[in-house]
């Protein structure tokens, strides 16, 4: 099995691509293959990992031009073409290197963030937008001794958004983000909406934080974000509902 891996280090004018032959194992994932490379072939290869079970959001990268979690993506079905996700063209998806999808897997860093080394990107911009939307609970009552009650139906709606793992796959797949680097992006907006619809919240002006051109209004409803999200978080739904609500008030 062959992997074509993006290599970059500070000081290089252009990135290079290295090809590695990894050992076939049943169920081998991209993360497993990268670990094989690091352990047996080239210990200088850089990438991030943690849970290897698709819950921590550390290992998002561009796999065959689709942002995905390396730990969740198996190689065999990739080579068979079973995992194809059709996405609207976006920066990062353009041709960078010749690659035969039937014979090898192309692994590159997530787009829209500066590459630190190899597959590691600088997540600062992503988290800057996350911080911008003030992701913290602002309750109406402080420190009562009992739990607040919540309608299980409300919880269901909230859970669509609380399950976001901040892996930034959506951010990396967003065509708008590629054209407009100021755009807060799907993850931050979905997170903002999560706080807005939390019935325990006091702050009713939350939506206004993103009532700016690079906020709610920048999205082109393309939907790449939803298609790549490993947790099926629907940012576009949040964005549309937020727009409706803001328009009603205007």
């Amino acid at each position, binding site marked *: 099995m062959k992997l074509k891996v993006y290599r970059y280090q500070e000081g290089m004018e252009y990135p290079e691509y290295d090809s590695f032959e990894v050992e076939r194992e*049943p*169920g081998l994932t991209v993360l497993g293959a990268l670990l094989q490379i*690091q*352990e*047996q072939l*080239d*210990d*200088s*290869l*850089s*990438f*991030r*990992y*943690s*849970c*290897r*079970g*698709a*819950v*921590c*959001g*550390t290992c998002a990268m561009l796999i065959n031009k689709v942002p995905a979690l390396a730990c*969740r993506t198996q190689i065999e079905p990739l080579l068979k073409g079973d995992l194809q996700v059709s996405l609207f063209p976006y920066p990062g998806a353009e041709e960078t290197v010749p690659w035969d999808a039937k014979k090898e897997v192309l692994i590159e860093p997530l787009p829209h963030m500066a590459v*630190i*080394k190899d597959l*590691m990107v600088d*997540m600062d911009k992503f988290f800057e937008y996350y*911080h911008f939307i*003030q*992701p*913290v*609970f602002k*309750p109406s009552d402080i*420190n*009562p*001794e*009992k*739990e*607040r*009650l*919540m*309608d*299980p139906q409300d*919880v269901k709606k*909230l*859970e669509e958004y*609380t*399950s976001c*793992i*901040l892996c930034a796959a959506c951010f990396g797949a967003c065509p708008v983000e590629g054209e407009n680097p100021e755009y807060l992006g799907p993850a931050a907006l979905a997170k903002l909406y999560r706080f807005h619809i*939390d019935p*325990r919240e006091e702050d009713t002006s939350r939506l206004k934080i993103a009532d700016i051109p690079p906020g709610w209004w920048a999205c082109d409803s393309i939907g790449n974000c939803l298609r790549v999200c490993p947790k099926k978080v629907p940012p576009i739904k949040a964005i549309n509902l937020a727009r409706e609500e803001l328009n009603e008030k205007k």
Partner: protein
Amino acid sequence: MIHEYEVVIIGGGLAGLRAALQVFDAGVDVAVISKVNPLRSHSVAAQGGMNASLGNVRGPEGSVDTWKNHAYDTVKGSDYLADQDAVEIMCREAPLSVIELEHLGTVWSRLENGKIAQRPFGGAGFPRTCYAADRTGHNALHTLYEQVNHRKIPIYEEFFVTSLIRNQERCTGCTALEFLKGEIHGFIAKAVLMATGGFGRIFNKSTNALINTGDGQALALRAGVPLKDMEFVQFHPTTLYGTNILITEGARGEGGMLLNKRGERFMEKYAPGSLDLAPRDVVARSIEEEIAQKRGFEGDYVQLDLRHIGAERIKERLPGIRQISMDFAGIDPVNDPIPVQPGQHYSMGGIDVDINGQTILPGLYAAGECACISVHGANRLGGNSILETVVFGRLVADKIIEDINDLATPPKKQVEKGIKTSKNHLEKIIQSKGLENQFNIKNMLNKTMSTKFGIFRKEDGMLKGLGDIHKMQEIVSTVSIKNKELELNHALIRLLELQGMLHVAESVAISAIERRESRGSHKRTDFPERNDENFLKHTLVKGEAGNMVVSYSPVQLGMFEPEERVY
């Protein structure tokens, strides 16, 4: 570069972040150091829930749960090795801790009446486990991270701690490698809290994140601080066959049944009273027994059947489990049983601390899975681990706040020395021209631990295993890494982890060999019975690699007298 804080917390999981909030809110200057972004901590993977006797769901015959019931189940589950004073604190504080998370913003699953939902879990007499679908750790960790960020508490992420600093018999800080730049930083602090999680990755087939390499326990050992009860390693009964990703006990809490190759619900034989919801040690051993008796499936697994629960309930309460089964095993539990086998899951033992979370080295504290305040004893009940992290994250922080009041800021001299020592150590690794590949040693270690110190243990096998660990400790010094740069050198970080893992593995091995009885997760085939007369005591182990010493300390009893465990 030297940084100065009143308190430094090593580790950014639930225990570390909960402590950081407490320390900060007391007006004390605090920073968190973590080898990953805190959101990537292993706490995020906790699935099933957090125990608290809220009493939101009635028990048998309409009875209402109390903290004492919770304490009894915990102590019995621990096979009477837990310290009952610590258990009392945890169980008394549990309802408050769940509600506290709720107030910080955590979204919990709810009952129709709007109260926090509770589900049954193994070894518990009541439906006591509060949960957020099967993403409880995720919801709680994200909440604490939000609060820490809101307070702008500094986080040094992707920093690997290389040593603890001692000054006049106090811990006064640490040194850490800034991974991106390859620089060693010094941290001066009046108090250091270790909150680095477990050491599961010394074993094969573990549910743990790949980062759970026992770094905190290794640091403590090197600083002369003992580890406690290291022989007690939990093997979770249901990990996904193939990848060993956790399949939460909540799946059995919702009614899931274990079946062998013949389609028999074999737990009827082993725990007729609690069936599939017996404690983890009991269920894990039962599965191993079925496999040993050739009643497992080829490849050594059994099945966890959820089909009778129904698609709707599976999708509502176990959505993550369903997704994991589809992604990693290619089956949908709505239509097919999940192939499962036991796998290493939790470290009951850890850094020896007193009831306040204080180690024998003044200034050094520990909380969460890396610590052994001893609420889990020989076997932890599901739902008690993230409970421990938030309860003792808060309480140990309170103790630190109290202790550091009158202390002056420690001098720089030792930390400067520490930086130099760490730099030399790294240089030596980089310069080494040995031939051995570190990853072969790691694989050997994993195999040794699982075969010699797994679910069933025996003296001769363990002695051989210990000998192998000693050999590995020798050859690890002949390892060379090809990448010779200090910046962003993963091979270097992984070697630092491995050096610690070999040290921690030795502590597990020696503790296990010396405990000549069976208790909780520690099952000796050569000593199959529990022996309270000789071993109702904690194991302590300390010392340099290759030169460890075992001693013992008494178990705190008081509420419940030891009795035979029947489920």
